[in-house]
């Protein structure tokens, strides 16, 4: 299988779906003439033309609302918000319209479209450009929220998202675009709503998604090497609907769990997951479920401070060891 980047995997999925279905089109800021702010759609405008690759004004609310309307009219829009920070400007459309129209219409009007966006910090972009806000959307009934951490999952999940009959927020991570991995050429899908055990182990369960999956795998290797501890790593992949069965199964085996997430802790997903674990497998737990989140501060610009503002491998390593004591 060819090894390609996360960026290329997403780009492939988009191209294949554009080729397969005339109703699929892209819209967003600077996706065309500029080639996409993360270069995912480079060359698309030339290849597909202005009808299907639509540069928009800087109007996040209209972008999402227009995609909703287009979906209601029978198209399959793939809208892009340059980063998840800007999604706050479109949050009304996402939460009050996209997520609710099917329900409010008594099931008459589905709203199938994909909203791609980019989450995360780590590039010194400062407080207004470095947030991980996906957990807010994961709270909303009516939305599907997907967050792939590998090139393989990115392509397969994006294809599922485009074919999904519901609104999907597709969250990419700015630090993953250069990550490489094996990705089949041509068509395949990864099902939405299934978490994935990315590494098997018997001593402790680590739950992660997006950037923190890499952290978890790195720490798991180090734990095996340095401490003889075998960590099982579960990648959530979909944040809504949240598939925790593999987590429960894993904790029944390991009796210990650590959750690691880029978001701020209060109201992030880690609390939900910890709450569910302690509820569902209470009798199997040998230690409290531990959580590693970003510290509760806006993202600072200075490189040294930013490094302190994101969960690190060392912190995770220590926390896992703490759980094992």
């Amino acid at each position, binding site marked *: 299988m060819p090894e390609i980047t996360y960026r290329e995997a997403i780009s492939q999925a988009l191209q294949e779906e554009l080729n397969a279905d005339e*109703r699929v*089109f892209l819209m967003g800021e600077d996706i065309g003439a500029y080639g996409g702010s993360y270069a995912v759609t480079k060359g698309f405008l030339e290849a597909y033309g202005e*009808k299907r690759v*639509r540069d*928009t*004004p800087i*109007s996040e*609310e*209209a*972008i*999402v*609302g*227009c*995609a*909703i*309307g*287009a*979906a*209601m*009219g*029978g*198209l399959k*829009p793939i809208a892009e918000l340059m980063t998840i920070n800007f999604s706050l400007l479109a949050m*009304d*459309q996402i939460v*009050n*319209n996209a997520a609710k*129209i*099917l*329900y*409010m*219409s*008594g*099931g*008459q*009007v*589905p709203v*199938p479209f994909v909203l791609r966006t980019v989450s995360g910090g780590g590039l010194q972009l400062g407080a207004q450009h470095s947030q991980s806000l996906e957990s807010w959307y994961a709270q909303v*009934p*009516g939305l*599907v929220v997907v967050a792939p951490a590998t090139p393989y999952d990115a392509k397969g999940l994006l294809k599922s998202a485009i074919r999904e*009959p*519901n609104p999907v927020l597709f969250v990419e991570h700015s630090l993953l675009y250069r990550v490489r991995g094996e990705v089949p050429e041509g068509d395949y899908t990864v099902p939405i*709503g299934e978490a994935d055990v990315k590494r098997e182990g018997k001593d402790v369960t680590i739950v992660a998604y997006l950037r923190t999956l890499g952290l978890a795998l790195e720490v798991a290797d180090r734990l095996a090497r340095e401490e003889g501890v075998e960590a099982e790593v579960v990648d959530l992949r979909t944040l809504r*609907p949240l598939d925790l069965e593999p987590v429960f199964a894993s904790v029944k085996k390991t009796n210990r769990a650590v959750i690691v997430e880029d978001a701020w802790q209060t109201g992030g997903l880690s609390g939900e997951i910890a709450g569910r674990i302690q509820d569902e497998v209470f009798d199997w737990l040998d230690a409290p479920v531990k959580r590693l989140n970003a510290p509760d501060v806006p993202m600072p610009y200075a490189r040294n401070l930013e490094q302190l503002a994101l969960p690190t491998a060392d912190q995770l390593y220590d926390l896992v060891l703490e759980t094992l004591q």
Partner: protein
Amino acid sequence: MATRLPGAPALEREQLLDFLYQMLLIRRFEERSAEQYGRQKIGGFLHLYIGQEAVAVGAVAALSPEDYIVSHYREHGHALARGCDPKRVMAELFGREGGVSRGKGGSMHLFDKERHFLGGYAIVAGHLPIAVGLGLSGQYLGQDRIAVAFFGDGAVNEGAFHESLNLAAVWKVPVLFICENNQYAMGTEISRVSAETEVYKRALAYNLHAEQVDGMDVVAVYEATKRLAERARSGEGPMFLEAMTYRFRGHSMADPELYRSKEETQRWLGRDPIARLKDRLENADLLREEEYTDLDRRAREAVDEAVRWADASPPPPPEALWTDVYVGRGPVRGRDHA
């Protein structure tokens, strides 16, 4: 008897009588809604359309049945004008299974997909970008179809208004924006919150065609809409129509109406769109008193029937709580508590 109205040669008498009937239907429907609200058959917010009937009736009549319509929460009139069954609209207000949205939407969220009535929305101006998207879908698919959005003067100050008009203009989307300027947003008079009180002038900033019409004159609304809809349909891009009108009742049932004078309301009551059309038809010898009485009786009967039907419709089954959250996805969390 004459067959045409002076000044409106394109309209058949039949159609003019239908305008009258539809306005009466909406009027009686709203009056009964208010009454049923008092009896707690209807809950939540109820926003009556009384006084503005000429806008919905004139505008919707000028559209093709394939054209998409979206509206805000004051949308009973638009739904009825589009031909939604009064029984099912009333049942929706009652929160019953037979409602157009199966009781899950309520007064503010009427949907009737079959009639391309794609919803009432309760976030001010939140449906305007949706209209742009609907218009875009028609354009993209090469359909001969436009989208129409109804909204109020208060919506004009929302960012969504601005973004929607600009996007529609840039992409030349076939969408017709119809602002019903009833001069108040809840208790706030337009001149206190809008830098420009002639709303269509604000629309001109987007380089699109915009004009104003007397929203108490159903024939004028019909003609203006017809003209603008055709221009949008023929590729000229978005169009904007400001209909000058007035709501005869409070903003919602809770409104004490402290913010406007009796005199002002009285002045506007003198321009009642129903009475005006009636007079005009009578003067042109197109309508006899007993015909009017008959139309009104029919309207009242249709509404009586709607109330009876709605009341006989059962509430949605408890199971309905869990459906329609997703297409093709199983039960959702929280179900264990049910």
